[in-house]
């Protein structure tokens, strides 16, 4: 065989090797991008798995905030929000809304008095076809600074190691403020008396193009009455749903939406850090809850309160949580909608 020239057979062999290499490299790059070579990196599945309660996977239900009840109502903007964002929802007027009062637990049958965190999912629709989805909770600050830390918190709270939470708290000093609220903060006997906070920051763009980093809250019109968890436990496992149903039947319930504007340098990327009390706040409107509907047939069941579904004029900020929540909520949505037969509707003509 001549040294200088390849034989045709050898050339074909070389070509086949090259083809095999190209195909192999392509497949490997694809698998790498899909995360198959890095099982330790956090995926939506990691969070969904870590959320699984001791009672088992809540088939057909949300993977967190699994227990809830739907409401319908209206958001009435007073026009003041137009100074901060050009989103149509802030123009003076009424916008249809629906949502879901819920408990921060992955167990859909957890007794109400055992769940510390309460939440509200809300969707406001605008005539221009856009919508604003938000999911808020009642603590004044979030438990941790990063999605990674939240994952570690889930692992620690599910751990059988008695020191797991202590170890976690030692490694995450920001957790202390949340811990203090969880222990010493007030409990109320009604969703209608709870204040709900976005905690995550977002960016509003006004009509002149100026940007404002904000957080928002829903402040209850009803006077909060503090009740001890022991007394709440005596009211039955589903007292919150029964109470809000009866209360709204007696008359609509209202919350004022307040937007807090950050100063430059405020911790916009860390929901575990409160902004100073004296920050500018703007009351932008009122949420009125007019009707309560049980979840199985209600409008809130088959919707994902993805906090990144925002109208033009509102966008995400440098806060890493909304992206993580969007990713994990989508996974939860994909799973539970595929499990609908495990959580059947009670009436045939229910709204999908």
């Amino acid at each position, binding site marked *: 065989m001549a040294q200088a020239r390849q034989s045709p057979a050898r050339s074909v062999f070389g*070509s086949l090797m*090259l083809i095999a290499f190209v195909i192999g490299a392509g497949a490997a790059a*694809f698998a790498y991008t*899909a995360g198959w070579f890095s099982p330790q990196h956090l995926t939506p599945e990691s969070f969904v798995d870590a959320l699984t309660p001791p009672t088992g996977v809540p088939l057909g239900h949300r993977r967190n905030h699994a227990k809830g009840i739907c409401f319908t109502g209206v958001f009435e903007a007073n026009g003041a929000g137009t100074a901060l964002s050009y989103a149509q929802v802030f123009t003076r007027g009424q916008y249809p809304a629906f949502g879901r009062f819920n408990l921060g637990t992955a167990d859909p049958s957890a007794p109400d008095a055992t769940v510390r965190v309460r939440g509200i999912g809300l969707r406001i629709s605008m005539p221009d076809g856009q919508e604003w989805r938000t999911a808020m909770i009642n603590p004044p600050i979030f438990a941790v600074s990063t999605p990674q830390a939240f994952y570690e918190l889930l692992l620690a709270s599910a751990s059988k190691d008695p020191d797991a939470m202590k170890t976690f708290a030692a490694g995450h000093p920001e957790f202390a403020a949340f811990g203090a609220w969880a222990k010493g903060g007030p409990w109320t006997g009604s969703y209608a008396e709870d204040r709900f906070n976005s905690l995550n920051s977002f960016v509003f763009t006004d009509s002149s193009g100026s940007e404002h980093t904000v957080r928002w809250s829903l402040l209850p019109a009803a006077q909060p009455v503090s009740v001890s968890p022991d007394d709440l436990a005596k009211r039955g496992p589903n007292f919150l749903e029964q109470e809000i149903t009866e209360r709204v039947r007696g008359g609509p319930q209202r919350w004022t939406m307040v937007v807090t504007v950050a100063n430059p340098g405020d911790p916009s990327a860390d929901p575990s850090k409160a902004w100073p009390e004296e920050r500018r706040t703007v009351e932008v409107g009122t949420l009125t809850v007019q009707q309560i509907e049980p979840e199985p047939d209600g409008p809130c069941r*088959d919707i994902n309160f993805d906090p990144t579904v925002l109208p033009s004029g509102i966008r995400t900020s440098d806060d890493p949580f909304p992206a993580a929540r969007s990713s994990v909520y989508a996974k939860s949505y994909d799973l539970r*909608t595929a499990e609908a037969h495990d959580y059947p509707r009670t009436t045939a003509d229910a709204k*999908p």
Partner: protein
Amino acid sequence: MTGYRQRFTPLQRLLHWLMAICILTMLFIGVGMVSTVKPKYLTLVSIHKPLGIAILVLALIRLAVRFRYGAPPLPADLPEPIKLGGQLSHYAFYVLMIGMPLLGWGMLSAATYPVVLFGGVRLPAILPHSESLHTLLWNAHFYLAFAFFALILLHVAAALFHALVRRDGVFDAMAPVPTYDEVVPAE
């Protein structure tokens, strides 16, 4: 070596290579975005949706161009099963190029997610809100994405086999730049 053969028209070659870049980008973004919880998740999703619609539009244009100009004949000495395989793969490509964006759009519609394009343009829902439709379309979109990538790998392997081993002009028919035995396209 047959060497001489008619090439695809320049418009067809442009569409092919432009779409090759778009579709590969799309598939990598797709598998990348569903496996991350980092802020890039939102960036990737915000590219995935408009890029998918762009591919749908390009694929429809390409289909019309294909009907108008056809494809150059395959070499006469190519075995019949290989010819058939090549032709079937073209059908599969068109089905996927048009079907995948529609499945994605339909899946988002069935879940009532907005489909936002560049510039904040919002597309209407093409299907009613339905959990069962969402599940069906989501599964189809997910598994067909892997089938699509596998088909592309097969396509690349076949193209390279034509270019390097058979050297029969099949690759040159779609080559982005004139190759060794380029002749004036008969148009």
